[in-house]
């Protein structure tokens, strides 16, 4: 019995066919550390986490991806992480990963004994993979001949899992999506969709993640099933929204994640990650009231926040208008965030937004603030280094100028007295001005339109042939009578 309308999946083939062509928006996470087109982020500061315990939180393929990212980006943990990555890859069946890890290690520590390729293992693994692929495809063909739905589904599932293991993600998601015709219960469909989502997350195909989460949500399954799926769904959705840059949506998704997530989604992210991502997105996109109400007073999200107390502290500092400690906490954890596979690309934007919001909030109570006190608050490092920290050319003043010019700050800089003056709003004058403006606009618009009507009525439109205009002109009036009386017939 089929639980889904046959056309419910119409979107999938196109999404899948679009998948292999990695568009500019899609970043193949699998290749992130190595083939990245942009400059590789280099992190020199030691992160706050312990690599061992950090990576132990994760399972599945994300372990290797994270290790490789840390290895290539952090100068401090490079060798340690890459060695772990090599070991991780060797424990799996993905040959290309192993090769990549060894190459990266050779770059970082050329003299390390582990930096040479174990060709025996590679050859052996290649052969075994090939054999396994052949066997599974052969089996699947057999199932198909027998026309047993359940066997075909399982055959596809096995094949997808195999492809996933060996790193052929495109084939994996193809194989998984082939399962859909043979799914007979909602549970099957849900598990299939989760597999597709996981592969899509690894591939960085965020559109596909979103559409598949939507499908999961529309799935008619039992209440407890839904409840069980909800945390993973929200987390996956939040992740995709984070990557597409809609931080407020992402914050909402993460905030809605149920604490029962626990460590059930470790192949993608941990509860700690949910706390960090959700907290940062919320900090970057919500105002103080909302933060207080929806994040700090949120009893479900509190469970996550307890895992990452620094985020909680940062948010409560922000809510209490203590921006310096808040920014300090975030800066202290900057290295950690930069070494996170999902945050790396977004942390800069998130930080800028948080900072901008902090500056905005800071200015609200003041009508004029000295640049000096602002510099102390938001750019303390500059104070020591530069002779005149409030000079027109100092980076902080430049930042302020940028914010004023794009309209974020409603204030002006006084370079003589070195203060930032907030613009006083004179409502009365503003209303008067806007009345005058709209009066003028209306008069102009009405003039334009009346003239237009009268020009047409007088038959004075611009036309190539002047003779015709006279004819039309004499007919003009009757013509209009016709149009309007006919139109009125419909009324």
């Amino acid at each position, binding site marked *: 019995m089929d639980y889904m309308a046959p056309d419910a999946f119409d979107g999938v083939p196109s999404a899948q066919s679009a998948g292999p062509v990695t568009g500019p928006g899609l970043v193949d996470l699998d290749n992130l550390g190595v083939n990245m087109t942009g400059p590789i982020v280099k992190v020199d500061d030691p992160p706050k986490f312990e690599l061992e315990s950090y990576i132990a939180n994760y399972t599945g393929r994300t372990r290797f991806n994270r290790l490789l990212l840390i290895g290539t980006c952090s100068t401090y943990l490079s060798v340690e992480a890459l060695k772990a990555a090599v070991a991780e890859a060797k424990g799996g069946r993905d040959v290309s990963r192993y090769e990549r890890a060894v190459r990266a290690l050779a770059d970082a520590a050329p003299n390390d004994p582990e930096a040479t390729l174990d060709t025996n293992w590679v050859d052996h693994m290649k052969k075994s993979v090939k054999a396994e692929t052949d066997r599974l495809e052969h089996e699947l063909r057999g199932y198909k001949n027998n026309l047993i739905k359940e066997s075909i589904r399982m055959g596809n599932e096995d094949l997808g899992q195999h492809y996933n293991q060996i790193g052929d993600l495109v084939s994996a998601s193809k194989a998984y999506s082939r399962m859909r015709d043979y799914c007979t219960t909602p549970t099957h469909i849900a598990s299939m969709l989760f597999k597709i989502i996981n592969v899509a997350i690894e591939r960085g195909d965020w559109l596909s993640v979103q559409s598949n989460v939507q499908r999961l949500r529309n799935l008619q399954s039992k209440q407890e099933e839904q409840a069980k799926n909800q945390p993973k769904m929200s987390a996956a959705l939040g992740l995709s929204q984070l990557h597409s840059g809609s931080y407020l949506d992402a914050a909402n998704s993460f905030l809605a994640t149920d604490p029962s997530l626990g460590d059930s989604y470790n192949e993608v992210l941990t509860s700690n990650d949910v706390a960090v991502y959700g907290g940062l997105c919320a900090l970057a996109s919500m105002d103080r009231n909302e933060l207080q109400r929806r994040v700090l007073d949120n009893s479900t999200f509190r469970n996550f926040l307890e895992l990452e107390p620094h985020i909680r502290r940062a948010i409560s500092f922000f809510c209490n208008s203590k921006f310096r400690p808040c920014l300090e906490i975030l800066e202290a954890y900057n290295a950690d965030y930069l070494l996170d596979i999902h945050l790396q690309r977004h942390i800069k934007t998130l930080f800028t937004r948080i900072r901008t919001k902090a500056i905005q909030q800071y200015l609200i109570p003041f009508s004029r603030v000295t640049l000096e006190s602002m510099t102390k608050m938001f750019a303390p490092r500059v104070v020591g280094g530069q002779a005149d920290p409030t000079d027109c050319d100092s980076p902080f003043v430049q930042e302020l100028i940028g914010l004023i010019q794009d309209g974020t700050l409603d204030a*002006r800089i006084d370079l003589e007295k070195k203060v930032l003056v907030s613009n006083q709003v004179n409502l009365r004058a503003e209303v008067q001005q806007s009345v005058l403006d709209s009066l003028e606009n209306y008069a102009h618009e009405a003039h334009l339109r009346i003239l237009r009507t009268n020009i047409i009525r007088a038959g004075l439109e611009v036309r190539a042939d002047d003779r015709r205009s006279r004819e039309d002109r004499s007919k003009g009036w009757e013509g209009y009578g016709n149009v309007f009386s006919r139109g009125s017939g419909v009324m």
Partner: protein
Amino acid sequence: MAEILLHLTTVSSQLQALDDTSDERYDTELRDLIAYIKQFNRNIDSQYLLDNLSPSQHTLSYLIILNLHIETLQNQTKNRVPDEIKPGNDLWAKAVYFLRSFDPIQVRYAGHEWRQLVELIGQSAEAVAKPFLAVQVIREALLRLDSSGVLTSVHITFLRLSLISRSYSHALPILEKEMFRFPTSSGQAYRKHIERPLCSEDTLGDTFISDASGFSAKLTYRDHTSFFLYGAMIYMALKYWDKALHLLTIVISSPVNDSVSKIMVESYKKWVLASLLGHGKLVAPPKIISPHVLKVYQTLSKPYASLADAFERSDFQRLRADIDFGRSVWRADNNEGLVCQLFRAYNTFLVLKLGRTFSALTTADVARRTFTSLASSANVEEFVASLVMSETLGATLVHLHPHGSATMLRFSAPTKLVFNKEISMRNRLIEGGRALRFIANDVDQCSSELKLGNENLQLLSRNQRWSDTSGKGGGDSVGEADGGLDIEEDIMGDAT
């Protein structure tokens, strides 16, 4: 001859006495008078009559006889503009005296003659290369006539003369009266039932100026577009950018049937420049321009678009390169003068923009931030001072003693409440309200002429109900065009 004079003067004095009585009497008397004058042969002693008639009281007689006189002269000398009518001569003085003092009510009956006279004045002033002499005369004649928003060919002649004579500010009284209408015969059908005699005080310009009355020559699309273009050019010469933009907008958005006229393209080019000079950016084109017309403009004015782009992006290098590069284009389009003003406008808008970011900074900073021709801080100071003096910029300049020669530029707060301003604001609001009433009135009139007035819509909906009860066939025929006019008269009958 004296007999004729006596008749003419008695009729006029009778008319004076009739002022209080009905318009209809006045109307018939005037028509009789015209019939009487028109039967004169050409040999009467017009000189004698002219000397003894007063243009303000015997307007009609004076005008017709003056025209007769000129016509005779023209026939004698075989010259369109005889010497006698040229400035400084006797007939010129007479004509000018007449145009300054004629009675606007009486002249309604002789629109054709009036226009002939005005045009002749223009031609003769041009013939002696002194168009300025005609500008003031025609302006006063037009103001006396009070066409109340109807465009006539005389208006166009007038603007052309003021452009030629460079007497821009003299044209303002005429330009400031907004033009709404065109002399047509088409509107007459509608007014038949409410028509008052021509002489009535309540008769508006759009009624007595029609195709038949002769106040205007036949207009074509060229006339009305060039009228607004001339107007815009006058405003641009006076640097009233907003008003110029409005008139140019009218031209570029005028309705087109199948092709775009060159006047419109020229106006679009000027519109681009005027919006840069007036607003510092390209304002959004009015929505009523159809997209294909806009596309035609854009393809025909590429150099201007690039200029505007450079200006908007504050890219001074490119702006200068574009201006140099397109020199021949600007010259060919006669827009060189406007383009030259772009430099100054560019600097002005940069300084204004700084005023939104800073409340005070040194002129050296200004010089650094505005990468333009006025690089040195002394030049900047001079420039800013000129802006402040012309009240474009609300700011003060302060010389700082301890900092040596540095000058601090302090911008005043964006909305500073001044008591004076409150009063002027009040006046402006009242003025705006008046303009609004005026235009709303016109909108009403326009919609009732388009059969979109309230009464007509009510009637139509009533008709609709009839047609529902009496079956479809009957209702349709009532709605048809031929029936439309009858119904129109019906409701008016009810209403009065």
